[in-house]
């Protein structure tokens, strides 16, 4: 085994451990809030953790540092995964997570850039964060900045027309500093995405629109890192990573359950979910 491989495995293990912690934070936060969106937060946990703890240049001590990379959570209802990543990164105290959705909290039901340090732009109304991320990438290009923009969209969200307006614009302006990631868990509120309005073939759609596309297992940290590395090597066009995921991932009674799209776990469910996550490996 080469040193390179060993280092890589160590990195993957560290991110995996951090992702477990992020998942327990999501569960606890939603349990305390009594409402919110566990399913889509858990499906995105490995992707968001990899971005904040491996991929992106950012500085919690200076959230608006101009040289930072940007992350836009276009599927804003997955706010818990973003808040957990920001708290774990040191943008605000971890204790704040228990105040999610409360009247005096800076942690709104959907991300608010003016209330929460580290949130790049307010999102929640689907499709708009993706378009705003394209605008950010364009602004950074104008300034010849080295910063990159990462944006996570949902599969149900991809039914929004603005997603495709923005998807046409980004390649037109060769925004190779932009990486879209599709959290493809195939569940939306009313059922399976493929049963409601199918977005397949997702990769072929973005390829046809002029994006470089990569398909991965969105829970395999090594594949996530590999895709993000590949995106950096692609010049002259944006990259869309189609991340196949499982809604509610790593909590047995939430996995693939559409009911946990927008329902918080009970006290007992919190205990069971955290138990399962902790049993799956070390926390980080």
């Amino acid at each position, binding site marked *: 085994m080469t040193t390179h491989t060993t280092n890589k495995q160590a990195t993957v293990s560290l991110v995996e451990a951090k992702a477990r912690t992020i998942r327990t934070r999501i569960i606890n936060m939603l349990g305390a809030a009594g409402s919110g969106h566990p399913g889509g937060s858990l499906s995105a946990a490995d992707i968001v953790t990899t971005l904040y703890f491996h991929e992106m240049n950012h500085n919690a001590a200076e959230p608006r540092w101009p040289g930072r990379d*940007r992350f*836009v959570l276009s599927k804003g209802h997955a706010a818990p995964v973003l808040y957990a990543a920001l708290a774990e990164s040191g943008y605000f105290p971890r204790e704040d997570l228990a105040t999610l959705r409360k009247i005096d909290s800076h942690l709104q039901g959907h991300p*608010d*850039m*003016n209330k929460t340090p580290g949130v*790049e*732009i*307010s*999102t*929640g*109304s689907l*499709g*708009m*964060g993706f*378009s*705003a*991320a*394209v*605008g*950010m*990438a*364009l*602004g*950074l290009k*104008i*300034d010849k*900045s080295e910063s990159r923009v990462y944006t996570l969209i949902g599969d149900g969200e991809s039914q929004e*027309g*603005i997603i495709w*307006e*923005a998807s*046409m*614009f980004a390649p037109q*302006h060769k925004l190779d500093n932009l990486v879209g990631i599709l959290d493809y868990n195939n569940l939306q509120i009313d059922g399976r995405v493929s049963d409601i309005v199918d977005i397949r073939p997702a990769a072929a759609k973005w390829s046809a629109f002029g994006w470089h596309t990569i398909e991965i297992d969105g829970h395999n940290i090594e594949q996530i890192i590999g895709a993000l590395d590949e995106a950096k090597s692609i010049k002259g066009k944006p990259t869309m990573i189609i991340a196949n995921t499982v809604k509610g991932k790593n909590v047995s009674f939430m996995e693939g359950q559409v009911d946990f799209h927008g329902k918080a776990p009970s006290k007992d469910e919190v205990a069971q979910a955290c138990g399962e996550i902790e049993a799956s490996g070390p926390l980080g």
Partner: protein
Amino acid sequence: MSEKRATREAYGETLIELGRVNPNIVVLEADLAKSTTTIKFKKEFPDRFFDCGVAEQNMMAMAAGLATTGKICFTGSFAMFATGRAFEQVRNTIAYPSLNVKICPTHAGITVGADGGSHQTIEDIALMRVIPGMTVIVPADYYEAKKAIAKAVEIDGPVYVRLGRATLPMIFDEDYDFVPGKAIVLREGTDVTIFATGIMVSSSLVAAESLAKDGISAEVINISTIKPLDDNAIIESAVKTGRVVVAEEHSIIGGLGSAVAELLCEKHPVPVARVGIKDVFGRSGEPAELLKYYGLTDEDISQAAKGLLGK
């Protein structure tokens, strides 16, 4: 007063002036660069001009993203699509986070003319006025449009400037000092106040002249900033004259007429007559024909004033 120009003509010209002194000015357009006059900016600053194609929603949300990188984004298109089609992008992605985006569409109101009702927005003031934190400006002539567009840059946050296609008489000149939020008394009077905005300001002045011939002293006040409204100036004049006509090229629901009526109902109730589009859609025609058809002429303003005076 002989020269007439459209407020939209001020747009491209002012953008160039702003672009020369401020490298952060970025202009977005939605396939209407010639009509909105942003093509002038494109020619001088091709690297800071982006045509979004026929995709107004993406244009607005991208403008929000650009604003987070320190750009001051001006967004074009026609008022119908900027405020109607892209309403929620403006509401949720620009205004909710209070981002520094200037929404300056042209072709507002029925004076769009022959294109007809689908393109004649009579709801845009209402749509923009209801959004928290949005500044809403409706210039009365070319010079006021120039000043308002330039001042919009100094306001940190979203600004809506309503521009039109119709050529209008000049009321102001190059030296005019436009102050956002300040009503301007253009003519003093004692019997009735005419609060007017946009294209209706010059016709209100004509109406006041005609009313004077009938022995009626009309005060004419230009309300170019509809939000924040100059409450004190409006109340002061209503106290003085006791009768109010509000004139606008917009639905009588939700625009300046509503804003003035809401204010006066609470603070100083007086009889109010609204001259505007009476809750109907527009139609094709020449601008002058349309103004007559929908009751938006100086004659209609005079009649409304006389009605309040029981004459």
